[in-house]
């Protein structure tokens, strides 16, 4: 399973592609992509939104299911989804956008 992630152009915030092609601030609201067609469509969307100054540096990441929830496979993506592991008061983990 995959997800598309990027950063918002204006403020650099980490975002993921959610349902209906919205960029969402919370990892849990991202839409997992199960098929090659879904992935392709999402990548097109990401490209269009990069061209439209919404986001930058979009790419796809691997996710897996853990205890009924999906999680990033790579530690780097876990950290992007939460915030610095040494500053729990910063990043997504500081607000309601928890993993």
């Amino acid at each position, binding site marked *: 399973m995959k997800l598309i992630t990027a950063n918002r152009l204006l403020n650099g915030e980490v975002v993921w592609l959610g349902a209906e092609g919205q960029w969402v601030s919370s990892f849990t609201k991202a839409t997992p992509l199960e098929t090659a067609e879904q992935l392709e469509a999402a990548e097109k969307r990401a490209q269009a939104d990069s061209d439209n*100054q919404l986001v930058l540096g979009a790419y796809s990441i691997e996710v897996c299911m853990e205890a009924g929830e999906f999680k990033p*496979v790579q*530690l780097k993506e876990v950290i992007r989804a939460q915030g610095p592991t040494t500053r729990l008061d910063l990043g997504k983990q500081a607000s309601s956008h928890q993993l």
Partner: protein
Amino acid sequence: MYRYDEFDRDFVDQRVKQFEDQVSRRLSGELSEDEFKPLRLMNGLYLQLHAYMLRVAIPYGSLNARQMHKLAHIAREYDQGYAHFTTRQNVQFNWPTLEQTPQILKELAGVEMHAIQTSGNCIRNVTSDHFAGAAGDEIADPRVYAEILRQWSSLHPEFSFLPRKFKIAITGAVHDRAAVQVHDIGLQLAKNAQGEVGFKVFVGGGLGRTPMIGRLVREFLPQEHLLAYCEAIVRVYNLYGRRDNKYKARIKILVHETGLETLKGDIEAEFERIKDGVLSLPAAEVDRINSYFAPPTFEQLPYTAENLEAAKATDRDLAQFVQRNLHAHKAAGYASLTISLKAIGEAPGDATAEQMDVVAQLASTYGHDEIRVTHEQNLVLPHVKLTDVPAIYAQLQKHGLATPNAGLVTDMIACPGLDYCALANARSIPVAQEISQRFAQNSRQQELGDLKLKISGCINACGHHHVGHIGILGVDRKGEELYQLTLGGSADENTSIGKIIGRGFPRNEIAGAVETVVNAYEGLRDNPQESFIETYRRVGPEPFKEALYGTA
């Protein structure tokens, strides 16, 4: 300290305006990210894991109270209330927005600061000895030459697109506190038999993927030729340095592949061609720049301060602080005071806005308005009176800045690593924090004495792990963080590159492995005065290997 002249001010103001325009063109879509990225990088703006990151230049690590207050203000108003001081004596903000960056740059320009040449394949901020102008052992103040090099290299049109980034470091003392031998050009001030000032010149040092120690290309370069000679080196590099492979593009690889003698020949030939031309440095110009760095007027004071001695007698912590964090000053009754940004369990190099304000305040009250950033990620008040140390210490203590660990095991370097950095393979900060906790006890650290521990989160080696007495490199092994230990590195006048001691350790074992190495050293040292690096050099890696992995 150096003050901007009209030229400096104009060009920094112009750059701010230019960047403001570039940002608005990016936001309107006139510029694509591909077009904009090199422009933002030229202004120090990176994209990291969580947000943009702005790297601000602190020329040769020197700043005044007003500038430090401004950095605190930026941390508070535009960021998350803290900043990170780096191994290149710069400062990084981890959470600025693109939208607000032009405004931040405007604020910086107001105090004669900018973020130019903190990124990209150009000559970067020249780094220097943090005790420059204060140290008792210096031949001349290296900041004067660092400033001359800054002016020469700023927006140097020929050197704006080098094969790779280019770093110059300069030290004024025989004891090298600026790690000059691991820079593309390393300069060490020297005097010849006639008493004239010049430089010992090293070329091709560097860390990263292929660590190399700089090679001596000139035993003595008279000061008037500083710029012509550096121009010759960079020109030869610009011509012959590899552009086909990013990992082979630094000058160290050119030195290695071409051979020192051939390259030296090329440099000397180019130098012969251009010397005594426009790049000659007249003594009058050196004097003019020197006047910006004129030392403050020091009072005639006795070597010791009675009040400090009395306070030390009743306050063990203060005594320890004095022992570790004060450095000998050239003027009697003064010292250079290190403010450790390595409080136990904290992220190395991070300071809160409040702490930055405190340091700025102390610099204006007690420190002749001078602050330094060290490449070991600490701050320094270079000129304080010994009689003022108890008062300064009391203030520092109130704000978590009085850790008496300068040069000890917990005074470690750690890069931001995977908690922030987009290039990282593994985390550095939590490893540093855990090791710091393990050696938290003051008496234990003091017993161990001088020990340089350096941690990088990837092979780019921003944390200088190759030259740590103990170095830690984070790598990625099949998705897991793994840490390699290197021993025996050093970045002073006896520079050496550490050797990997054996297989790496997972995240939960690395702090323990460091403790094993340190315990082994304690057992091996000849006497309590023999430092870790001395012991290592005497006994070699084997006993440490045995301690870590057993004899099997």
